[in-house]
């Protein structure tokens, strides 16, 4: 685990406020009031987090190139920060909202691709990124009767976070948020491989977040103008099991969202496992890139 020099940071106060008093208030306040407060917090954060906004603008310029004007970049960076806050607020709303009410607010497309992939009977790996509607997509799968799990890290392991956040706050976060529709399995678990295999054998679903290097197997690839490490352990499983790989994107919040399942990826064959992994991670990274470029303000890791 990465160790931070700081025991405690200002961000810890914000996280504590979110996880304890705000979460408790959100369990009783009217949903409209929570949304309003979230929007307010989003605007405050967008105005104050100027360093993060600058980083986002720089990344957007590199990713989008000269085709985007400076004004558009400024607006996109503002939206990125608003969406980041809205997403956390929405996680609390999601725990209160009923299935019918939730599904009435969104649109799901490409479900036939996902169902076709399941018909193969070898399990499906839904490959996605950290988009604003990821939690909703997980909830949709859960409520629609598709058993699944996502792979997360027990500790944040973020070099920018304090020791307190990495060690305690982030694990508390994953315990109290995402109560419905998402059962996390930790990358550190020794039986991770067995659990993935078991789920695929049951023709179930495993959700892979491609944009975080949560794996013991990583490959670095060019991505949005930078070099980034990508998890590839799941591709080794695909090589062995023949499970289908379906890209998925969830955009929006519980008041308006879209979930899109794309056609199962036509994976390139290879005689050797390493070759298979290297060829196909390129395909998947390009898919993720195109998803982000379509809705950059909805990608949370920018």
């Amino acid at each position: 685990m990465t160790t931070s020099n700081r025991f405690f940071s200002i961000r810890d106060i914000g996280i504590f406020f979110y996880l304890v008093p705000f979460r408790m208030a959100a369990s009783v306040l009217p949903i409209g009031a929570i949304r309003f407060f979230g929007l307010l917090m989003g605007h405050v954060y967008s105005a104050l987090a100027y360093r993060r906004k600058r980083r986002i603008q720089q990344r957007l310029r590199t990713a989008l190139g000269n085709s985007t004007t400076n004004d558009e970049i400024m607006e996109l960076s503002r939206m990125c920060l608003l969406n980041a806050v809205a997403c956390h607020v929405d996680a609390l709303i999601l725990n209160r909202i009923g299935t019918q009410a939730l599904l009435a607010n969104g649109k799901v497309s490409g479900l036939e691709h996902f169902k076709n992939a399941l018909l193969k009977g070898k399990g499906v790996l839904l490959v996605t990124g950290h988009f604003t509607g990821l939690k909703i997509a997980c909830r949709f799968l859960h409520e629609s009767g598709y058993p699944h799990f996502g792979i997360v890290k027990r500790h944040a392991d973020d070099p920018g976070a304090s020791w307190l956040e990495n060690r305690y706050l982030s694990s508390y976060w994953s315990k109290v948020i995402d109560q419905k529709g998402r059962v996390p399995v930790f990358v550190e678990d020794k039986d991770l491989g067995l659990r993935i295999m078991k789920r695929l054998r049951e023709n179930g679903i495993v959700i892979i977040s491609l944009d975080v290097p949560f794996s013991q197997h990583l490959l670095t690839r060019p991505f949005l103008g930078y070099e980034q490490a990508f998890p590839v352990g799941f591709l080794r499983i695909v090589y062995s099991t023949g499970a289908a790989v379906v890209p998925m994107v969830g955009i929006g919040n519980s008041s308006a969202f879209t979930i899109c399942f794309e056609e199962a990826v036509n994976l390139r064959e290879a005689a050797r496992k390493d070759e298979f992994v290297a060829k196909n991670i390129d395909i998947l990274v390009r898919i993720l890139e195109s998803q982000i470029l379509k809705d950059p303000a909805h990608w949370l890791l920018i």
Partner: protein
Amino acid sequence: MHLSIEDVKDRIVEVMIRELELTLNPEEVHGTSRLDDLFGMDSIAITELIIGIEKEFTIKIPAEDLSVEIFQDLETLTEYVKKRLHGKTTGSIEGQDKTQC
């Protein structure tokens, strides 16, 4: 074909060396008390071992049998595979046809 428990164990060790690309000789693998020690931090490796064993012995390991108890060490795995092989010849293992591989 009837395989003794030692034959099964030897073949599992061969599969391990081949599938996990281990740089150990069979004696060293036999001497390993826990399978975790062979995999190290690589929890995905077990999926390759499962597929390798299935191919080697032409058996299917159903989802309900994918447990830590069976894959904890060479002895438990060997016993399990032996049982599956016996079930294959007598057709007595429950759930054998329930797999969706």
